[in-house]
């Protein structure tokens, strides 16, 4: 893929988005999480075993910012789960762009989960495959697919990765 337009400045801009995204989740600032996406978007968390054979079933699958908001409302007011915190570690991303406005980005991630008993565990490992676009001047996710290797989810998944 051509990478004609990728400048250090643009690279920094993309990296800022990736970092701000995980900080938002890890700081439990989840009401702001949908703002990282364009109004029409695709967010999915899909096991690698489905993705690699072309099966579409995902654990979370949202195709609008409204659906992302509904996930958070349910998490805050409907779903029952034990207290838990995420800590994301993300790799340096591989970024390609042709025009400086649309970016195809891939990065690895690890999510550690800590519950009330104080034990931190490796909860979910995978990679993000993103399409990032400029929306009113601001970079946002048009698509964010988290393809996870840890295909046996511990207990449940309520907080987005």
């Amino acid at each position, binding site marked *: 893929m051509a990478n004609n337009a990728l400048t250090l400045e643009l690279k920094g801009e993309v990296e800022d988005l990736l970092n701000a995204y995980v900080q938002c989740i890890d700081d439990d600032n989840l009401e702001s999480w949908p703002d990282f996406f364009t109004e029409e978007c695709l967010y999915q*968390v*899909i*096991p690698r*075993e*489905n993705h690699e054979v072309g*099966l*579409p*079933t*995902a*654990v*979370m*699958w*949202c*195709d*609008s*910012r*409204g*659906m992302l*908001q*509904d*996930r958070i*409302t*349910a998490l805050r*007011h*409907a*779903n*029952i*789960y*034990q207290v838990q915190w995420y800590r994301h570690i993300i790799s340096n991303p591989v970024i390609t762009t042709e025009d400086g406005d649309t970016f195809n980005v891939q990065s690895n991630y690890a999510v550690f989960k800590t519950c009330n008993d104080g034990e931190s565990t490796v909860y979910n490992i995978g990679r993000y495959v993103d399409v990032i676009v400029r929306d009113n001047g601001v970079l946002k996710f048009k698509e964010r697919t988290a393809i996870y290797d840890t*295909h*046996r*989810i*511990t*207990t*449940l*998944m*309520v907080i987005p990765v």
Partner: protein
Amino acid sequence: MNATTPPHLKWPANADHTAVPYSVFNNQEVYDLEQARLYNGPTWNYLATEAELPEKGSFKSTYIGDTPVVVTRGQDNEIYAWVNRCAHRGAEICRERHGRSEDGAYTCVYHQWSYDAKGDLRGVPFQRGLAGKGGMPKDFDKKQHGLRKVRVVNYHGAIFGTFSDDTPDIEDYMGEDVAYHFKRIMHKPIEILGTTRQHIAGNWKFYSENTKDPYHASLLHLFHATFGLYRSSQKGESISNNDFHSVLWASGGTEDESALDDMKKDKLRTLQTGEYELQDMSLLAGTQEFEDNVTLVILSLFPSLVLQQIQNTLAFRQILPKGKDEFELVWTYFGYKDDSEEVRNYRLKQFNLIGPGGLISMEDGESTELCQNAIVRDGEYTNVIQMAGKEASGDDHLVTEGLIRGLWKGYKELMDF
């Protein structure tokens, strides 16, 4: 209490099936007896869908209880299953979750003993020695050293296996109503849409109880209530067959295209209780695909399967015990082969409701762990299972624990407790 009941398992006298001692959920001896008497006993265990074994040579690795089992489609197009353990020295033969054996052979990597899809031993390297040295004894008979075989049945596209010769015919095992609802969902060829897996730190029977428990549905799972999506008109029934198999069904009457408008109207009526509303109602868009207008079916086939329809979501949930205090729940999601793209998309979006991240199902794993956490001691204490009386039977409503009483009635009989 029978002679075969472990002494620590103090089943209360005269309680019928309304009280179960907690030690049944966290005792190694009980767990081992279950593997022997239930999973190796006269039960049918869900193994796979036929759709996962599409062609000659297809295979899938799974379990009966905690025993590793491989399901295969042979060169004769028949389906077979065998314990995934080489007859030679006990090594695991098949190391992939699923795939296809081009030549129909299954070869242990350790000493390359080779088997066919039926589990019969076909090849033993150096059987006659090398250059006159070594080799197996002259009376070594390959026919005597096949894999441990599993009797299988293909019931309307689902493959079940049993180790016992005493297991009744699958439809007799299920019972009439369970068979009816099974066939209702599996009434035409299915298409697999994916798999998810959940690891839950609780005894598998807490989950069995959960799937026979309509009492908790509106109390634990608050998604519908929170968004004011509750339907007061829900009709339903809880049905028990042969004690430990069951069906819960409910009809919502909201699954056609006009459902969204109806729900919005409903929400107005319940606004005083619901301060939240869905930003994107398309989550609940769907189609009424069954003429009976039933929108929820939880079919629980003891000991290892739940077959479910929730709105347009269809899935097998396979319960795999992994020890006395943990189990894995494997979700296999499907639609029908003749689904239009529109219907398929309804299903994919509605999968947000079920599975490990399911907006209305994620709490089931949580509830299982809540119980397991609290019963580490006081194994002689019992729970209380008395909603809708003391009978181990179904009801024409959903405010009951009758199916759970049925579970324990059947369990005690089969376990000889």
